[in-house]
């Protein structure tokens, strides 16, 4: 008998099919809004800017890039560049290998949903076709429509588009990469970005 059949047979012998699913957890009544989200994001080591009108996003991002890039390469994923317009960033070539982003100084990507209770932003696979880019870059900038901020994770996940899982990965990003593995001392930039700037914008 295959391992598959053996395991399934043992599991079938062990379960009773008596315990019902409790149903969805009702979303709690938490405060939402940009201010609460921004406070949370600061709490997890990120920085929130805005909300700014969409025509101003490019200007604000340029300011952050100038602060962070230190002359290094600046990439904006295609969907982010659509929001930004032209600037000091370039859209990465489609055929660049995953390790090709190793020395990227700043990456700019478009998030879709923000969560006020934990400062997390949903980065959908469709907006991050270069999967390694937001993890190899030294500094990460996320753009987020201010209308996409929800108070809690239940309502935030429910607000994702129905095909959010159809592009391989969906990542909730809450602040920069971090570790406290050496004597509980918090250090940002364990493996991934050292900083995370979020620019909230009011969609046109």
């Amino acid at each position, binding site marked *: 008998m295959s391992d598959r059949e053996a395991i399934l047979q043992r599991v079938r012998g062990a*379960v009773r099919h008596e*315990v019902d699913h409790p149903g969805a*957890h*009702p979303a709690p009544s938490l405060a939402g809004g940009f201010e609460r989200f921004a406070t949370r994001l600061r709490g997890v080591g990120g920085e929130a800017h805005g909300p700014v009108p969409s025509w101003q996003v490019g200007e604000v991002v340029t300011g952050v890039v100038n602060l962070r890039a230190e002359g290094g390469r600046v990439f904006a994923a295609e969907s982010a560049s659509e929001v930004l317009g032209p600037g000091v960033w370039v859209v990465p070539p489609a055929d660049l290998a995953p390790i090709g982003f190793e020395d990227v100084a700043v990456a700019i990507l478009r998030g879709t949903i923000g969560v006020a209770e934990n400062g997390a932003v949903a980065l959908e696979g469709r907006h991050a076709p270069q999967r390694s880019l937001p993890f*190899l870059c030294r500094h990460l900038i996320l753009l987020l429509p201010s209308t996409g901020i929800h108070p809690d994770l239940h309502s935030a996940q429910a607000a994702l588009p129905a095909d959010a899982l159809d592009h391989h990965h969906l990542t909730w990003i*809450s602040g920069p990469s971090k570790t406290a*593995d050496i004597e509980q001392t918090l250090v940002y930039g364990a493996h*991934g970005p050292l900083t995370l700037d979020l620019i909230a914008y009011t969609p046109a």
Partner: protein
Amino acid sequence: MSHPVESGARRELGSPEAILRHDASVFDLRLRRDAAAGEVPDWEALCDRAAAVKAHGLDHLDRYLEEFERRATEAGAVVHWASDAAAFCATVGDLLEEHAVERVAKSKSMLTEECGLNPHLEERGIVVVDTDLGERIVQLEAEPPSHIIVPAIHRSRQEIGELFHRRMGTPRGETDPERLTRAARRDLRTRFLSAQAGITGVNFAVAETGSLVVVTNEGNADLGMSLPPLHIACLGIEKLIPRLDDLPTFLRLLARSATGQPISAYTSVVTGPRPGGELHIVLVDNGRSALLGDAAHRSALRCIRCGACLNTCPVYRRAGGHAYPGPIPGPIGSVLGPAMHEKGASLPHASTLCGSCTAVCPVRIDLHDQLLAWRREGSPPRGFEALLARLAGFVMARPRLYRMAGALARVVWPALRVRFPGNPAHGWLAARELPRHPGASFSARWARERGAGE
């Protein structure tokens, strides 16, 4: 004779200073957990819901396993099944050999610790690099992790500085956590870039969508999943949750319970391989189905490995994780131990039964009741212990004899406090002092106090 955890504690943490530092670090996590849980108005209801979802999922695990396999396969993943640790190691090793992989970047997975994957792969000539900073530290020290969330919590910054000096060339005497972390980042970055496969654990697997949910703070799992073309995900069968809709319930509990963060830095929901890549998922039983069939102990399979029970446990905090035989220390390790490995039989005795673990468990595992249940099922006491237990039972069943024994105990008590070979309390006194005797029995004090009150 001392308990294995007691002798292990004396061997591993060593100095009183090291024990105090460990205790403080671990309890700090507990305090952070309390603060984070206190900020969530629906915390208790959330725990109830999480426990109920897990209970339902486990009770329908056959269906959810098949659903998960179907959905994951539709998404393009290859699903493998492994009955035990040997089958699991062989499956992963064979996959890597088939792909001619020599270098692997691995992120944290307690399942691979449990199954001894690293030694197996190393025997086959494959270089496995643990990429979580704490895991990397214990890998370089050639020791197991001592905590399921903070693997190197037993190590001081001086020890880590010395290790990195030897292995990564940091300046001698460098103990600054930020500079040490930067050194590890540089060292591991080159290993990520040259890895030919990424191995990850899985925090949750969603049956409804065939998705894997992988949570880290460092982003190391995401690098492992996104750089090499081959991703192997190691998944214990108990990790399945029924629906995507259930996921926020667990994510809201996990990081808050573990470290007091509102959510971990990165939570990736991965469905199928990335374009041009391969995703292999290995579903592992290794004793889980047997535990599932044991109605008295099934609840332990709800565990989401947050570590909250370790951080609050007075025994774990002072003994350290290496004192526990088996891959998982602390209360949950002692509850899983008797079912999962042969050295685990005595683990349920390494507890004060204070119940703090049960109070903090976000999925409502009745940990201290489980420990007590395992004790009842374990082998009965033998020799001197059995004699004492029988004697105590005999005396306690006879009130007059009990009162006489109490009076006698108050006379000989001071002698018991003295350490001398042959003192039956000698083993106990090696690590602690007997408390001072109150001088009078409870009944005598009760009579006196009540008399005084009237």
